[in-house]
C-alpha cells in the first residue's frame, strides 16, 4: 500500500531515508534500498543533505521507483531558484514521484562548498504553496500547465525547538500552505513530544516522529551540544554509557521509543545516517 493511502487508512506508517552518494557508484545505496524495501512504506531521498554536494535527488528517486520503492522526494530551496524548483518538480512528476517533502535547507556555510551562492529564492512555506499550485495546474506565474501534478506534499517540524513558539507558528503556516503530513526532527524527550502532539492534534495532519539511532553516549552528547532542536535526556545518555555494546543499546532504545510513540502519532521516520543496515534491527526491536 502506498504511503498516502496508509496514512489515510490510519496504519502506523514507517519511513526511512537514503542519502544519495557523492559520486556515481550507487551500489551501496542500492543495497540499502533493497534491504529496506519491504520494511517501510516509503523512503525519503535527501537533497544535498547538510549542504554537502551529492547525486541529485531526482535521479535517485528514479532509481528507487525502478526498484519498486516509493520515494519521498526531499526538495530544499538552497540550490535552485523558483524556475529550477518548479521544473524539477515537473520532472519528478513525470518519473512518477508522488510525495514531496518541502524544506528550506541547511545554509551553504554548513556544507562542503561554503563559497557557493545560497539561493533561497523561496522557502519551505512558499514551496508548499507552489506545489499546491502545480497540483491545480498552474505555475507560480499563473501560467497554465499542460498536464498538472498530483503531489502529496509534506514538511518538517522541530517539536523540541528552543524557543518553540516561533517554530510552532511556522508549523501552523505550513499546514495553511498545504502540508498534508509532517516528519519531525529527532525526538528523544517523549514528555515534551507528547505536549507538542497534543497541541498539534487540532490540525489533524499526520505526524511521523523522527527516530535517530543513538550509537553511543558520545554521539548523544554531541547532538545535545551541536544540533538544533535535539535534546537527549540524561537518563538515555547514562543508559548508553553503562551499556557494554552501545550500538545494540541504541537499537533497543530506538525500538522502545517507537513502541511508545505508536500510541500517540501516525508513524515514525527512522534516520540511521551511515548505519542504514541497522534499520531492520530497529524495526524488529519495535515489534514492527
Amino acid at each position, binding site marked *: 500500500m502506498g504511503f498516502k493511502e496508509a496514512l489515510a487508512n490510519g496504519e502506523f506508517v514507517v519511513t526511512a531515508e537514503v542519502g544519495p552518494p557523492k559520486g556515481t557508484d550507487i551500489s551501496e545505496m542500492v543495497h540499502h534500498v533493497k534491504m529496506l524495501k519491504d520494511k517501510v512504506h516509503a523512503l525519503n531521498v535527501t537533497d544535498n543533505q547538510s549542504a554537502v554536494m551529492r547525486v541529485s535527488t531526482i535521479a535517485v528517486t528514479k532509481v528507487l521507483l525502478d526498484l519498486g520503492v516509493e520515494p519521498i522526494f526531499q526538495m530544499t530551496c*538552497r540550490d535552485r531558484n*523558483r524556475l529550477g524548483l518548479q521544473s524539477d518538480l515537473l520532472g519528478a512528476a513525470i518519473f512518477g514521484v508522488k510525495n514531496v517533502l518541502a524544506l*528550506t535547507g*541547511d*545554509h551553504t*556555510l*554548513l556544507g562542503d562548498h561554503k563559497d557557493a551562492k*545560497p539561493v*533561497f*529564492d*523561496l*522557502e*519551505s*512555506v*512558499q514551496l508548499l*504553496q507552489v506545489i499546491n499550485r502545480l497540483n491545480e495546474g498552474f505555475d*507560480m506565474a499563473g501560467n497554465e500547465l499542460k498536464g498538472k501534478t498530483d503531489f502529496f506534499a509534506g514538511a*518538517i517540524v*522541530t517539536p523540541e*525547538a*528552543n*524557543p518553540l*513558539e*516561533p*517554530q510552532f*507558528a*511556522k508549523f*501552523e*503556516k505550513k499546514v*495553511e*500552505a498545504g502540508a498534508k503530513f509532517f516528519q519531525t*526532527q529527532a525526538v528523544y524527550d517523549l514528555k515534551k513530544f507528547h505536549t507538542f502532539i497534543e497541541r498539534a492534534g487540532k490540525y489533524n495532519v499526520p505526524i511521523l516522529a523522527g527516530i535517530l539511532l543513538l550509537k553511543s553516549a558520545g554521539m548523544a552528547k554531541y547532538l545535545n551540544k551541536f544540533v*538544533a*532542536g535535539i535534546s537527549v535526556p540524561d537518563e538515555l545518555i547514562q543508559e548508553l554509557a553503562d551499556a557494554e555494546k552501545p550500538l545494540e543499546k541504541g537499537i533497543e532504545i530506538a525500538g522502545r521509543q517507537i513502541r511508545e510513540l505508536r500510541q500517540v502519532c501516525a508513524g515514525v521516520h527512522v534516520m540511521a545516517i551511515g548505519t542504514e543496515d541497522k534499520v531492520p534491527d530497529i524495526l524488529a526491536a519495535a515489534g514492527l
Partner: protein
Amino acid sequence: MIVAEPKSLDEIKAMTEGFDRILMVGCGTCTTVSLTGGEREVNLMATALRLARKVEGRDIEIGEQTILRQCDFEYIDELKDVDSYQAAVSFACGAGIQGLARKFVGKPVLPGVNTQFIGFNEEYGYFTEQCKACGDCILHLTGGICPVARCAKGLLNGPCGGTNNGKCEISKDKDCAWVLIYNQLERLGNLEQFKKIIAPKDFAKAGNIRSMDLRKAGD
C-alpha cells in the same frame, strides 16, 4: 550608512606597483564613520605604502586628500592637482569609487576598501548589516527587523529548523532574526501578523541595473 572594510597593504601595494605618483582619496561620510576610509585611514595607508616602497628602493609619491563625499560630483570637483597623478586609490564605497572614476578620466581609479553592507555602528568599531536594498521594504510586517538582511537565508515566514536558543545556524554569535521578530511582534501585540504568510519576494525589483527617475516628463 555604507560599511566598508580596509583592503590589505599587500593588495594595495600590488595594485599600485606600476606607479610612482598616486593620489589617495578619502571619503568624509560613510567610510569615515566605519573607520576605514577617512582622513586618518588614508594617512595610515599612505604612510605604510611609502615605507614599503622605500624599503624596496622604489619611492612613491602619494597625495592625500579627503572630500566630504565621493558619490557627489560637486565634492569630487574640489580635488586639487588631479592631473599630476598617474592613478588614484579611492577609500569610498563602490559608488564613491565609481564616482571618482567618472571624474578621473583616462586614469586608473583603484579600490582602497571592500564595500560590505548598509548597516550601522553598534558600538565603537563594531558594525552590523541592516539592509539589503532589496527594493521592496516589508519592515512594517516584521516588527521593524529585516529578515532579508538579518536572516542568513532571507526567509520571509519564520525561523528555519537551524535556529537554536535564539541564535542562527551559521553562527552562535548571530541572533536568529525570526526569534527577534517573533518577540518584537509579541511586544507589539501583533502576533497575528506573524501568522500571515508572506508571498515570495519580487526579485524583479532588486539586483538588476537599477535606477530611479524622479524627473517629470517634459521637465
